[in-house]
């Protein structure tokens, strides 16, 4: 048989980082080209596959941050112990760093939406000289849901960071409020030239992109990433199709000019 894209390979779990009770990052052995925003189909054989974005990239590993929300991710949480997972990928276009270099950069992420864009934040936090300044707004539901808390310290040293939660019932180090409310207060050097990445749940992306347009960002300078059901990751199964676009092949990262036209 010709090259079989459906066959997964076994990948060793090098480390498990627990962010919350239901969100872990699995550091998986992987050698090869990967871009932030791309995804792997991750599976536990006999239980199923789920598309998971790459949340960190190293020489010999990729980070896959998995939220326990369904049958497959549930099994991954139950069964990962000391072992390995099956992967295939990476799939999708991912974020192309060339679109962000030399720009004033604004990243707005909601919940697990931080995962696909985390690689971009990681990269520029140690290469700030390649930007004209960078701001991260990360919103979560409650303090318990915050992902990558240990990374925020490092990011704060390099860039402007607003960590916010929708609601909190105790004193927390972060601010309270939706990500959109910080947009008008942003002190951007040149709004017309600022490049923004917005990733999160559909409603959050809709309101956030509108907020950015309202303060004067150009729509061609906004990038988004879509989450859809994907069974194959290679443009066959049809679940992720919107209009003439296959999110798995042509996305999941889209310039907003294209992404805003993708109506399900």
């Amino acid at each position, binding site marked *: *048989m*010709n*090259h*079989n*894209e*459906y*066959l*997964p390979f*076994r990948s060793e779990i090098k480390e498990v980082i627990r962010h919350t009770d239901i969100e872990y990052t699995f550091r998986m052995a992987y050698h090869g080209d990967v871009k932030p925003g791309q995804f792997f189909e991750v*599976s536990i*054989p*006999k*239980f*199923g*596959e*789920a598309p998971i974005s790459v949340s960190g990239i190293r020489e010999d590993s990729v980070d896959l941050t998995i*939220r326990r*929300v*369904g049958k*497959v*991710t549930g099994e991954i949480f139950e069964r990962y112990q000391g072992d390995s997972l*099956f992967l295939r990928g990476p799939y999708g276009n991912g974020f192309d760093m060339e679109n962000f270099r030399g720009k004033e950069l604004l990243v707005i992420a909601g919940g697990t939406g931080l995962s696909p864009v985390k690689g971009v934040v990681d990269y520029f936090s140690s290469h700030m000289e390649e930007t004209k300044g960078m701001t991260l707004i990360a919103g979560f539901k409650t303090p318990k849901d915050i992902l990558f808390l240990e990374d925020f310290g490092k990011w704060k040293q390099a860039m402007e960071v607003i960590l916010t939660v929708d609601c909190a019932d105790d004193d927390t180090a972060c601010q309270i409020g939706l990500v959109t409310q910080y947009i008008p207060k942003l002190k951007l050097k040149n709004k017309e030239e600022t490049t923004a990445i917005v990733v999160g*749940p*559909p409603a959050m992306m809709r309101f956030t992109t509108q907020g950015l347009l309202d303060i004067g960002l150009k729509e061609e300078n906004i990038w988004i990433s879509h*989450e*859809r*059901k994907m*069974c*194959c990751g*290679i*443009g*066959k*199964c*049809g*679940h992720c*199709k919107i*209009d*003439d*676009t*296959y999110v*798995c*092949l042509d996305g999941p990262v889209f310039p907003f000019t294209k992404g805003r*036209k993708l*109506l*399900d």
Partner: protein
Amino acid sequence: MGYILNTKEINEVFQNWKKDSVIYAPILMKNGGAFSDTDSVHYGEIQSIDEIVFDQKSDFSFKEILLPISETLFYFTEDSVKEPEAPVKQAIIFLRSCDLHGVKRLDTMYLHNGAEDPYYKRLRDRVKFVLIGCKDSFESCFCVDMGTNRSDDYHASMELWEDGVRIDNKNPEWDELFAANCSKQADVIPSYVTETETQVNIPDSLSLDVMKSSMWKQYDSRCINCGRCNFVCPTCTCFTMQDIFYTDNGKVGERRRVWASCMTDGFTDVAGGGSYRQNNGQRMRFKVLHKVYDYKKRNGIHMCVGCGRCDDVCPEYISFSHCINQLEDAMKEVNGNES
């Protein structure tokens, strides 16, 4: 080359083909219909020409031969994955012109849209096509309007006439076989229809704006989201993955894919509860625009081949062609709203 063979002669040809091929054609499934004492016509393996149903449209298309309804991708054991063996035999598929155009749609998705699909490819490479000419169209056919009423893309064509089975052969490997078994050679041009009772008009002005039309609302209540229209369609290609472990040995299992339908619940569900297109009217809009609008934007040809099977199968008497014919007014409606 054209040949005219009698029943005995054509069955000799079939015998010869069967040495290394399985012959698939529309056959009558006695009592195979959903209602009692009704039959159905599906694709199945045949031994002789009299098993082929020439005078009816098959309820399901040839698609299930190239894209099995439920297909095992690989088996899992403790720590390995193993692909199932490919079939050893070649396949010869009898089909009409609309369906032959449907093959092109399957090829587009499975060979060209993203990485090549190895399971499709290995079946596709083994297939030859025999065109069943259409002397007349059926009530729901609209192939002429979709430009699929004629095809030259066959290995051979076959039709029943009073003087025998008329064959046009384009496959040089078969010439000797046909010649050896035939009493008459003649020029044969496969029949095709030039007019259909059902006609469709896909407006040039069609755009995504049509999703705002009120025309889709009727389907919210009329459609029962059963997915029959997708399953009988020769061009629908969606599937869903299934992982299972065998109940008698939990250490062993398989990953398979099964046909999926964009009309049924769950098609767009993402982990965590997200779901798109909750109502049936919007699912209908998604399907119809895929068939006669956005597929063409991406691939240059319309997806729908006008076979009309979706009309024939709908238990709620929803007509796809009738829906297409509402698009022009729907565009006027949405454009009117904007001005």
